[in-house]
């Protein structure tokens, strides 16, 4: 697994990391809950046939500036700016969890800015009869097993690498959880459902079979709200962050959809 190229773009005066790797048509990826403190195998699978571009949203690892975003409109504009500056305008766009919610938003509000989209268990909805799990009210030791079918994978991704700053590394991980909270507290409901009818891009929904955060019923609600519908693919042996549990299978589904 080789390292990607790292560049930085400016969003509202704050730096946001952008990783790039591979060749071929571009595909963007917006990370899920907790962000990406390090490169992951899933991105390598995408990079085998595409130029994969991974911009980090404000407050997620590699980026700051979440704490000046007060409203959902602030977040939408910041994300749109980030994608443009990362060179993803008009490209295929994928995302997971928190990031997937913004894939849907961008596709709904700026339909010309995306080609095809893929979303892994997006945030943005809440159903009282089938509630999403409160990802913030958790004991630290329960978080890995909540987010991944195999919690060890999440733990490894979040473990401090040798030589990292032992003060700043844990702060960066907390900041990622805070940034997600800033957008989605307390229920995860941004009323995304109202904007889903604006989506025109061909849409793939991916759901980990063992997702303990986002109920599977949300996939059907989302697909139903998109006028052209959406294809739903279930990934065996995967939790909420399916791309961590089953990198190859998720990458295959995404690439298959993007064509």
């Amino acid at each position, binding site marked *: 697994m080789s390292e990607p190229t790292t560049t930085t773009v400016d969003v509202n005066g704050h730096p946001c990391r952008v990783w790039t790797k591979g060749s071929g048509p571009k595909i963007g990826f917006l990370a899920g809950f907790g962000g990406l403190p390090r490169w992951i195998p899933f991105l390598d699978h995408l990079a085998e046939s595409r130029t994969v571009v991974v911009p980090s949203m404000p407050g997620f690892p590699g980026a700051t500036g979440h704490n000046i975003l007060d409203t959902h409109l602030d977040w939408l504009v910041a994300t749109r700016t980030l994608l443009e500056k990362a060179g993803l305008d008009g490209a295929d766009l994928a995302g997971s969890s928190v990031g997937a919610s913004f894939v849907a938003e961008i596709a709904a509000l700026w339909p010309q800015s995306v080609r095809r989209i893929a979303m892994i268990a997006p945030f943005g909805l809440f159903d009282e009869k089938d509630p999403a799990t409160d990802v913030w009210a958790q004991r630290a030791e329960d978080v890995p097993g909540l987010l991944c079918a195999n919690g060890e994978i999440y733990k490894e991704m979040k473990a401090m690498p040798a030589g990292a700053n032992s003060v700043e590394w844990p702060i960066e991980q907390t900041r990622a959880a805070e940034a997600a909270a800033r957008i989605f507290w*307390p229920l995860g409901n941004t009323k995304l459902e109202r904007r889903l009818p604006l989506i025109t891009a061909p849409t793939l929904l991916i759901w980990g079979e063992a997702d303990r955060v986002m109920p599977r019923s949300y996939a059907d609600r989302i697909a139903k709200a998109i006028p052209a519908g959406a294809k739903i693919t279930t990934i065996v042996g995967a939790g909420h962050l399916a791309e961590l549990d089953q990198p190859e299978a998720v990458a295959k589904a995404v690439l298959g959809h993007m064509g």
Partner: protein
Amino acid sequence: MKLMWFHLMPYTELPEDFRDKHPSVWVDIHSSLFDPKRAHHMYNDFMDEMEFAADCGFDAICCNEHHSNGYGLMPSPNLIATALARRTTDTAICVMGNSLALYNPPTRVAEEFAMIDCISGGRLIAGFPVGTPMDTTFAYGQNPSMLRERYLEAHDLVMRAWQEKETFAFNGRFNQQRYVNIWPRPIQQPHPPVWIPGGGSVETWRWCAEMDYVYCYLSYYGYKAGQATMQGFWDEMDRLGKDRNPYRAGFLQFVGVAESHSEAMERYAEAAEYFYGRCLHVDPRFASPPGYNTEATMRAGLESQVKRAAEEATRAPSEQAQAGHNKPKDQLAGVTTGTTAGTRFNMVARNMEDIVERGYVVVGSPKDVAEQLEHVAKTLNVGHFMLLLQYGNMSKDLTKYNTKLFAEQVMPKLKPLFSEWEDRWWPKPMEKSARAALPAFRPAAAE
């Protein structure tokens, strides 16, 4: 010094197996444990106790705000304070306080505090806590990432609402109001004294110094655990060139007075063990929502951990063994601290011997207690003691016994402390002769 009588208003009938059968005293404590008809008696007993404390000569009676909480039955301390304003005459009324970010619009706080100040004839102390994570982010659903920014903005709005003479527009980041003009207005000018309960963050200390507010350290873990925090506060005051006026600070302490130490241990064990065993049983999943602690506070905590680890590593193995190397670090000194509420809850001592040993509760004969508290006051340099003389399931009789004995035999020994300093942060009520006379309470039907 000022001796203030504080009530948390705990629900006193949590079951004995509460810790085993229920995950948390806070946030999702089960409604089946609450009997409103029993609470009727609890509220009335508690308010009797506060009025009794005022009669006994305590300088202030204090109440506070909690939500969805089995040890704090005051979602609205302002209701209690108002009732007390009508049943007391000279005692200061300390509302410790209103969690500013929870009020929409925050001018509600300016209005209600102004009402209490008017009704009481200017006896209000206005406390402005951020509020715990359990209260604010979970029970009240506030965003932890915006809580402090909202708090600070609400503070600015309330202070302007109290002081500006003309109707004004407030164009805040989170609050926008075209017409801010509160009626009533506070008696105390330019505003009631403002007290800030806080943890040990440097930002809060600096802000209190800059605004000239009282900083209060309200910990349930007593003077031993409070020492480092208060030391930090005074060091920061020195750095900022502020004087060491002990009335800049307030400190919470549990106390149990009896004829002797052994009698006090016996009398107060049940109530103390009830409080530390059942009332502080908080599910750690509610203790640390991301963003609640500022990054500066996290950084300071992590840096001190790293420093401590480095110091440990350079010590000889024999020294490490002597220092109790295998124990959790925060227990080494026999105190209860910790970087988050969650780590503190996990380390709480729960039996009377340990509770007293760690200094959570100061117990003894009046002479013992006076000596211990004098030592605490001088060591921590605090001029305002907020005393918990009722805690846990302590009965009304025992509460009154504790209160009376303290007032008669401990208070006189402590009152003269710090007489060389002026308390610039104490309420300035109307002249007594100008204040409304409160009629003796008699139900109309009895006339």
